C-alpha cells in the first residue's frame, strides 16, 4: 500500500512538472485564453456531445438519432457552429467585416466542392484499377487504397503532361471528369457510404468519445476553413510548397529543380484547372482531414480499440499545434503524405495478419514509391516497414538482422548526410560491411530453422525496394537531366531551384563589365 501511494505521488508529480515546465516555455497559451473571443460558444459546442450522451443513457431510443447521424449531418452541424463562432455580436462593431463571414463561407464551399472533385476523380481511377486487379481488401480499406492509388495515377499522368508542357485547363478538366463519368455508380455508393451512412458506432461509445470526436471535428473544420486564403502564411509554404504549384501552372509543365514534388503537381491542378490558389492550398490541408479517417479505421478495425479510445487518440494528435499549423498555416505536403503513409501501414498490417497476398504487397510498394516522390524522407517509413515485415511473434532476431542491413545501407549510401551528421570515418565501409555480416549471421541462424519464411521475406523486401525505386525513377531521371554533374545527391535532391552563380561567373562578368 505505501508503494501504491508513492507510485501515485510520483506519477502525479511527473505530470505536474511536465505541465508546469511546458507552460513556462509556452507563454502564448495564456494570451490565447485571454484574447479568445469564442470561449463561450466553444464550451457550449462541447456540452452538446455530453448532453447527447446523457440523453442516450436516460432514453436509449434516442440513440438512433444521435449515433445514426451521418458525416453530412455532423458537417452541417459543425458549420452551423462555425457561423455562430464568427461572433456576429462582435462583428457589428466592425462594419467593413459584418457581411464577410457569409461571402467567405460561400467561397469555402466552392473550394471544398472543387477539392472533392479532384479527390473523387482520383478515387474513381484508383478503384477502377483495384477492380481490375481483384485485390481482396475490407471495404473501408479498399476505399482508402483506391484513393491513394488514384492519387498516384494522377501524379504519374501529371508528370507526363508536365514533361510535355501541356498543363492547360482544357487538358486537365477532361482528365478529371472522365473517370467520374465512367465510375459514377461506384462514386454514388461511396458518397452515400461516407455522407449518409451512420458515422458513430451504436455501441461502445463512452462520454469522452463524444467529446473527443467533437473537439477533433471542430478543429479540423476550422483548419480546413482557414486554409482558404490567397496568402499561405508558412515560411516553407511561401518559398516551396505553395510556390511550386504556382510555378508549375505558370510554366504549363514541370519546373526546373526542387526535390521530387509529386504532390505539388496534384496541387497545381488548383491553378491550372480552376485558376484558384485556394484549391491548391486546400489540397494540402485536406490531407489533415483524411488522416483521422484512416487512423479511426486502423484503431478500430486493425488494432481492436474501442471507438472512444480511438477518438481520444485522434483528438490528442490533431490538437497539437504542429498539426494544426500544418493544417492551415504552413500548408506543406506533410499531411497528405502522412495519410498515404498510414494507408501503406494499414495495408501492411492487413497483408501480414490476414495472409500473404502478393498483389497487396505490390500495392504497398507502389504507394511507398509514391510517398518517396512526394518527400524523400519517406525512406524512414520504408525502413520501418521492412524491419516490421521480418518481425515474428516472440522473436526479435530477424528484425534486428534487417535493422543491421538497413543501417549498413545508410552508411554505404551516406544517407546520414540528410541529418547533417556526416560521419568522418575512414572505415565507414568496413563498419558497414561488418553490419551486413552480423545481419547475415543472424538471419542465416534463423534460416536454418525456417528457410522458407526467410526466403519469402527476402523476396518480398527486395520486391518492395525495387518497385518503390522504379516509381521514383522518373523523378531521378528528371533530377539527373537537370544537374550539370549527376551524383547520388542530385538523384535525391534535384538541381538547385534558384539561379546558379559561381565566383568564377561573377569574376568573369565583372571583368567584362570593366572592359566595357
Amino acid at each position: 500500500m505505501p508503494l501504491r501511494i508513492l507510485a501515485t505521488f510520483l506519477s502525479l508529480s511527473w505530470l505536474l512538472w511536465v505541465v508546469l515546465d511546458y507552460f513556462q516555455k509556452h507563454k502564448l497559451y495564456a494570451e490565447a485564453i485571454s484574447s479568445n473571443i469564442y470561449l463561450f460558444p466553444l464550451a457550449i459546442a462541447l456540452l452538446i456531445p455530453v448532453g447527447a450522451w446523457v440523453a442516450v443513457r436516460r432514453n436509449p431510443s434516442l440513440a438512433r438519432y444521435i449515433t445514426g447521424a451521418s458525416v453530412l449531418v455532423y458537417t452541417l452541424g459543425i458549420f452551423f457552429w462555425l457561423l455562430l463562432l464568427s461572433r456576429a455580436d462582435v462583428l457589428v462593431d466592425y462594419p467593413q467585416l459584418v457581411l464577410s463571414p457569409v461571402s467567405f463561407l460561400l467561397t469555402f464551399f466552392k473550394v471544398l466542392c472543387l477539392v472533392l472533385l479532384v479527390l473523387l476523380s482520383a478515387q474513381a481511377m484508383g478503384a477502377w484499377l483495384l477492380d481490375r486487379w481483384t485485390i481482396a481488401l475490407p471495404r473501408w480499406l479498399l476505399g482508402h487504397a483506391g484513393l491513394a492509388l488514384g492519387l498516384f495515377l494522377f501524379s504519374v499522368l501529371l508528370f507526363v503532361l508536365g514533361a510535355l508542357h501541356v498543363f492547360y485547363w482544357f487538358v486537365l478538366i477532361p482528365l478529371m471528369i472522365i473517370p467520374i463519368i465512367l465510375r459514377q455508380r461506384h462514386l454514388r455508393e461511396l458518397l452515400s457510404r461516407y455522407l449518409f451512412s451512420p458515422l458513430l458506432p451504436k455501441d461502445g461509445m463512452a462520454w469522452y468519445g463524444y467529446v473527443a470526436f467533437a473537439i477533433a471535428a471542430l478543429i479540423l473544420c476550422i483548419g480546413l476553413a482557414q486554409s482558404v486564403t490567397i496568402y499561405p502564411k508558412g515560411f516553407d509554404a511561401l518559398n516551396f510548397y505553395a510556390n511550386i504549384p504556382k510555378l508549375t501552372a505558370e510554366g504549363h509543365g514541370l519546373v526546373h529543380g526542387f526535390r521530387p514534388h509529386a504532390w505539388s503537381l496534384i496541387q497545381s491542378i488548383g491553378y491550372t484547372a480552376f485558376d484558384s490558389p485556394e484549391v491548391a492550398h486546400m489540397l494540402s490541408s485536406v490531407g489533415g482531414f483524411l488522416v483521422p479517417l484512416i487512423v479511426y479505421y486502423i484503431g478500430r478495425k486493425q488494432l481492436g480499440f474501442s471507438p472512444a479510445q480511438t477518438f481520444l487518440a485522434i483528438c490528442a494528435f490533431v490538437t497539437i499545434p504542429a498539426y494544426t499549423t500544418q493544417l492551415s498555416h504552413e500548408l506543406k505536403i506533410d499531411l497528405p503524405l502522412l495519410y498515404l503513409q498510414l494507408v501503406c501501414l494499414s495495408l501492411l498490417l492487413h497483408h501480414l495478419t490476414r495472409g500473404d497476398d502478393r498483389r497487396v504487397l505490390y500495392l504497398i510498394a507502389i504507394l511507398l514509391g509514391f510517398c518517396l516522390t512526394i518527400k524523400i524522407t519517406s525512406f524512414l517509413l520504408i525502413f520501418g516497414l521492412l524491419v516490421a515485415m521480418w518481425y515474428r511473434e516472440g522473436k526479435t532476431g530477424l528484425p534486428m538482422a534487417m535493422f543491421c542491413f538497413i543501417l549498413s545501407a545508410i552508411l554505404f549510401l551516406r544517407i546520414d548526410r540528410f541529418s547533417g551528421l556526416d560521419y568522418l570515418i575512414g572505415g565507414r565501409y568496413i563498419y558497414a560491411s561488418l553490419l551486413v555480416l552480423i545481419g547475415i549471421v543472424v538471419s542465416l541462424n534463423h534460416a536454418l530453422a525456417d528457410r522458407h519464411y526467410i526466403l519469402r521475406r527476402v523476396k518480398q523486401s527486395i520486391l518492395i525496394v525495387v518497385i518503390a525505386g522504379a516509381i521514383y525513377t522518373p523523378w531521378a531521371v528528371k533530377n539527373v537531366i537537370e544537374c550539370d554533374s549527376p551524383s547520388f545527391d542530385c538523384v535525391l535532391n534535384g538541381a538547385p531551384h534558384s539561379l546558379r552563380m559561381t565566383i568564377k561567373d561573377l569574376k568573369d562578368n565583372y571583368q567584362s563589365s570593366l572592359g566595357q
Partner: protein
Amino acid sequence: MMQYRRYLSALLLLPLSVMCLLAQDTSVREEMQRYIGYEPGTFKYLTLPYDLVMGSNVAGNYIDIGFLLLAMIGLIFLSRIPQKKWHYALVVLGALLYLSMSMHYGRVSLDENLYLSVNQAGFSDAIASMQQSWIDKIVISTYQANELVMGPVWSFISNVFFAVSSKDWVTIPALCIILLGIFLYSNWYLSERKKARAFQLTLAVLACVSFYWFLLSAGVLWYGFIIFILAFLLLIGSYSREYKRAGWIYYIFLAVLLGWGFLGLIYKTSNIYYKSDQPNFIVDPSVWMYYSGAADEDFVHNSYNRNVSAALTELNAHPEAKIYKVGTSFNYLIDKNNERVYEDNLLSFFAQIQKNFRDEEIASVLEASGYKYILIGLKMWSVDSTPEKTLQAKFKDFIGFVESADKLELVATDRRIRMPDGKVQYGMRGGELVDYGYYALYRIR
C-alpha cells in the same frame, strides 16, 4: 538461451561496428541542426524528446507537439508497480536522471522570444530584470537547484565521453543499444500480455521508424509525424484498456487528455499569430474582406507583412531583373521567382564573395551579373541557435556591407524609425528604432 546469446553478440558487435565521427558544415549546422540542438554527442539525441516537447531547441507553434506524450509516459510508467521492487526503483531513478539531464541541457523562457540556459553567462542578470509569474519562479528555481546539484555530474560525463568534439565514438553504438533494449523490452511486454499481432507489428514499425528518425532527421518534427500518431494511438488505446478499472489515476489521465484537447481548440480559435486592431476572429479579417470584395490582394499581403506591396510592385514591374535574396519568405509573391532569384539564405555564398572581392566592389560585381535588387530578411539571423553564433556574425558582415555601399538605395522596408522631427516613417537608419521590421529591399544603382 541461444536466442539471448545472439542478442548479446549483436549487442557487443554493434558498438564496435559503428564507431563514427561527426562532421559539421556551418550552414547545415545553422539551419538543420538547430532542431536537434547543440548538446555534445549522445546527449543531443537523449534530450531530444524533452527538448521537442518543451521547445528548448527551436520554439514556435509549427514545432510544438504539446506535453501529452511526455506526461502520459511518466503517468503510465510511474503508476505501475512491477513485481520486483528494485525494478521500480530503477524506473524511478531513470526518470529522475532523465529529467535532470534534460534540464541541464535545456533552457528556460524569459519571454516568448527569449530562451536561456541556466548555466549561460548573464542568466542571473537576465532573470533579475524579468517579471516572474509563479510558474516562472517554480520552474526557474528548480532548474537552478538541478544545476547546482547535478550540473557538475553532467559536465563531467560530457567531458569524459565527448572531450574530443570531432570524434564521437559513443553516439551511434549507444543509440543501437537503446533500440535493442526497446526491442527486447517490447518483446517481453508483448509476450506477457499476449497482444494482437497487428498491435505487435505496429509497435515494431513505431520503434524502427522512431530510431531512424532520431538518427537521420536531425529532430525535424514533421519528418516523423507518423511516429506521433502511432504513439498516441498505441499509448491511449492500450492504457485506457488496461487501466479502465485502475481508479482515479485513470480519470486524471482522461481529464488531462480532454483538457489538452480543449486547450488545443482554444489555441487554434484564438488565432493569436494574426496581429490586427480587430479582435482575433477565427479567420483573418483581411481574408474575410478580400472574399467580400472589400479589399484587394495588396491589402491582404500588407496585413501579414506591413508595406510589402511596395517591394512587390517594384520587383514585379521589372520581371527581367535578377534578385539576390537573403532570407524572407517572399518567393511565392515574386513573379518567375525560379528564373531570377538567387537564394543565399544562410549567407554561405556571400562569405565567398567577401573573400574574393572588396566590400566596395561587391555591388558592382553583382550588377555586372545582372542583379538589380537585394532583398534582405532582417530577422534571418534569429534562426541561429549555434553556440558559436556563426550566422549572426555573417549577417553582421552582410549588413555592414549593405549600409556602407554607395551603390545601394533603399526601395522599401517595413522597418519603422522615429525621425528627429518626431515623425515615424519607414526606413533603415537616421532615427530611433520603433519597429525592427521583417524585410528591406535595395536597388543597385
